[in-house]
């Protein structure tokens, strides 16, 4: 994965490396992006393009559609981003937007308006996750994968169905033939455990 480590070094503001977008912090990159700097968009794509694509591919299950959505996400981010660097990490914003738009596409495709669009109320507003600034996206991916492995298989299963397929709890109930209460308990416990395991990343 072509992901640059974006270690925060406030002291290098005056140095020449500041001219290299791949070394800039998220805030610097976003400011450059807002000023119409194309190289900033390139650097943001280099960092997060693959993560956005992976999620788009997982939900849409079609490479060309996933690429199309990836392009849509980055162009939307370029054109008029409502992202506020003080309110959360860029990757959280991009993935939330990707998931939301991918599920929208699924909805349009299947014409089943019943599909829930979860977690779209607002972009997570947490910030100051120091670890997120210190490690690369590749490392974050490893941490998340490792955390997920520690969650019971049945909890993973319902979380994935809800997140990637956009299925409602009752639809999961029908597909797995288990009581609604069990589905709810499993997804909630799964998410709570994941959060506990990723505490250093998200708090």
């Amino acid at each position: 994965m072509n992901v640059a480590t974006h270690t925060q070094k406030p002291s290098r503001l005056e140095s020449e490396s500041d001219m290299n977008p791949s070394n800039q912090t998220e805030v610097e990159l976003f400011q450059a992006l807002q000023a119409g700097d194309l190289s900033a968009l390139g650097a943001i794509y280099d960092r997060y393009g693959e993560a956005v694509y992976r999620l788009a591919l997982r939900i849409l299950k079609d490479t060309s559609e996933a690429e199309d959505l990836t392009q849509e996400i980055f162009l939307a981010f370029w054109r008029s981003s409502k992202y506020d660097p003080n309110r959360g990490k860029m990757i959280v914003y991009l993935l939330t937007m990707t998931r939301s738009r991918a599920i929208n596409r699924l909805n349009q495709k299947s014409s089943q308006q019943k599909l829930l669009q979860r977690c779209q109320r607002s972009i997570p507003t947490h910030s100051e996750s120091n670890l997120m600034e210190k490690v690369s996206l590749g490392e974050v991916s490893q941490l998340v994968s490792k955390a997920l492995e520690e969650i019971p298989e049945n909890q993973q299963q319902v979380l994935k169905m809800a997140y990637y397929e956009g299925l409602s709890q009752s639809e999961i109930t029908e597909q797995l033939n288990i009581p609604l209460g069990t589905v709810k308990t499993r997804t909630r416990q799964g998410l709570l455990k994941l959060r506990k395991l990723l505490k250093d990343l998200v708090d």
Partner: protein
Amino acid sequence: MEPLELPPNWEALITGYVLSDLTPEEAALVKQYLETYPELACEVESLQATLALFPLSLPKAKPSEGLRSQILEAAQKDLSSTVKTQQTPVSPSPSLPLSPFSPKPWLKIAGLAAVGLITSLGFFNYRLNQKLATAETDLSNYRLQTELSQTQQELSRYQEALSVLKQPNNRLLALKSITPDISSSGSLVIAPNSEAAILTLKKLPNLPEDKVYRLWAFVDGKKVKCAKFNPDSQGKVLQKIPLQKWGSTTEVFVTIEPKDGFELPVGETVMKGSRAI
């Protein structure tokens, strides 16, 4: 009124809220909890962030090599339609050393944007010169004479703007809309050497007759009136503004004000601008 007490299962409830698996009644209750206990918002945000990072566990998959350049090309097209940033040999001056006291990367961006403006205005200049030449071929025609005079005026306005933009030590403030229903953007180039600033905006909606747009600057924490203006029929603004006490500003904003105006803004703020970086 009794404060709403948190139930023992509050954690399950807010997790359900994040997962959208609550009944409408439960969801309404959680909203009340969030209002009563603002600190709960952190819990919600943390769970939302966890969920957003969840897909990072997906197996690796790379998009095709060409996608990056495809995205950048599309973004470049956007940029070209706004302000032409490609460095064409219209002016030999784009080196723009700009402000001598802060050699920071934004200067490069400001320089590039100024070059874009110069290029763009240079193009208008060229077109107007062409138009002028055409108009001059038949001075006997009254209509053409009127057009000639208008074109000359317009030309001198662009030429004036061009000469300001070519000055060294210019500073650029990028302006962006802050209301979702307006997609206007533009820039304010402050040219201390010319004691003027050039305001260029696009996609600015026309206002009723009794209203105008006003540009304000923050100077030492105070709001200072800079200029009033209205866009043309295509929503564009090109205005030279004399620099007064606000030349050192790093933050400006645009409001909609009554035509007669006041010394301080009273209307809605529609755009904000700050030093490019």
